[in-house]
């Protein structure tokens, strides 16, 4: 038992499980003092954020407030001007992570068959062919994907292509998965289908996930935590828990807890937009 747990047990007399749970849920990602400017525009000023392990965090906020910038900085795609981002206290290069782009058409490699697209990051890790194949097959079985992976991406529907992108991100068994508006280029029907796929993947793998979404319903529906950002420079307007058990389904959308959380997020969002 850790000192902290012992201390709070003594001090507050709370049940023994609670502080222990809090201790094991030490934040996976810590962002401290993040500062980023584009020219004169200040996007982040000494911004702090904790992302808990094994949770799905949805990021929601006004257009252009810096949602993409945030996950791009955390994922190392763009450098911060100042600040520190650690994963269990380690820097990004020490961990494996996956990133899914909005524009799957431009993120996949059209010269490779889908299966080779998924294998590509394993190739970069210099795994032998047999091992790569085995890993992909394991992932396919794990996710219950029924697509012909010998086809080229351009021979597939948008949803299937995005699913390939997600599998390519997952195949390295990442500690954390980033998705930047992954479904916004899909039609509504496909979006609904892909939400379920993502939920399944999350339940199956329990990977810490950061999802940027421009659709509040989707953001809340998929989230354990909804991160609401304000504008210029971005601040945490609210960080809302949503703990309805999974798997969630259509019925979830009309449950009281969901409706209340969504209404609360919308109110915060509108307050921030009006300030804007």
């Amino acid at each position, binding site marked *: 038992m850790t000192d902290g747990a012992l201390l709070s047990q003594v001090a507050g007399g709370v049940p023994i499980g609670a502080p222990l749970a809090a201790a094991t849920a030490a934040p996976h990602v810590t962002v401290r003092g993040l500062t980023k400017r584009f020219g004169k525009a200040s996007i982040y000023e000494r911004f702090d954020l904790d992302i808990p392990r094994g949770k799905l965090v949805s990021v929601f906020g006004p257009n252009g407030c810096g949602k993409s910038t945030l996950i791009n900085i955390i*994922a*190392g*795609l763009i450098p911060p001007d100042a600040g520190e981002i650690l994963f269990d206290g380690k820097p990004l290069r020490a961990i494996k992570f996956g*990133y899914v*782009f909005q*524009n799957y058409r*431009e*993120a*996949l*490699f*059209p*010269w490779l068959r889908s299966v080779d697209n998924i294998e*590509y*990051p394993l190739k*970069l*890790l210099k795994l032998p062919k047999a091992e790569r194949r085995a890993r992909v097959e394991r992932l396919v079985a794990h996710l219950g994907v029924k697509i012909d992976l010998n086809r*080229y991406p*351009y021979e597939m529907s948008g949803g299937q292509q995005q699913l390939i992108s997600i599998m*390519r991100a997952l195949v*390295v068994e990442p500690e954390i998965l980033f998705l930047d508006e992954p479904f916004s280029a899909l039609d509504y029907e496909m979006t609904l289908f892909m939400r379920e796929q993502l939920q399944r993947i999350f339940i199956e793998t329990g990977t810490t996930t950061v999802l940027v979404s421009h659709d509040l319903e989707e953001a809340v529906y998929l989230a354990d935590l909804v991160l609401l950002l304000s504008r210029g420079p971005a601040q945490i307007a609210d960080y809302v828990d949503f703990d309805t058990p999974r798997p969630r389904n259509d019925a979830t959308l009309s449950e009281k807890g969901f409706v209340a959380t969504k209404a609360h997020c919308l109110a915060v969002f509108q307050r921030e937009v009006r300030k804007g």
Partner: protein
Amino acid sequence: MKRALDPFLPVLGVLGLIALWYIAVWKQIVDPVLLPSPTDTFHAMYKGMAGGRLGFDFLMTVERTILSTVIAAAIAIPLGIFLGASERLYRSLEFVIDFFRSTPASAMFPLFLVLFGVGNTTKISVAAFGAALVILFNVSYGVMNARKTRLLAAKVMGASRLRVLTDVMLLESLPQTFVGLRNGVSLALVIVVVAEMFIGSTDGLGQRVFEAQQLFNMPDMYAAIFAAGALGYGLNLMFQLIERTFVHWSGK
């Protein structure tokens, strides 16, 4: 019913042209000395290609065109990748490349004659020079316009700069490289044929056309012109087929 005829539509234009040609000869709309009948022309073409001079000249032109394109590609593709990968370097050379790309290659003949004499080398090097600039320009642009997201995707998966270049940029630039190769081979053919006409040549399609005209042998001249046309068309088709096989994702 109508649809079944669709594949034969391109043939209609050819048949129409030949019909017009027959009528023009038959009605003597054009001086028969200047315009021989299609029969005479095709006969001259058949005789020339089947073991005659025309076949030999055809092969000489093919050889020069292919050789100059290969040389151009061997220089321009690696250079284009190099320049395209470092965009600032390309920007600093852009004017020079555009300037020479806009200079008619035929204007370079005298210079190359001084450098290489009246032999084969001059013809091939001027053609290679012209084709190389076209290929260089296209390859560089292909590399520079590589989809940013795709480069980021490779980077985010942990690809080194070299891997990004070989695994992504190179393949991204292939469609544009083929545009360059097709334009380059067309230009090389133009330059080779012109060179064969005027630069102390004893063979090649250009020489054949020129000689037939000097001798007023119109069927031979038309036959050589058609052979040159078929060559240009064939080379283009060949590159298109190669592209379709190797760059299956082009335009998708």
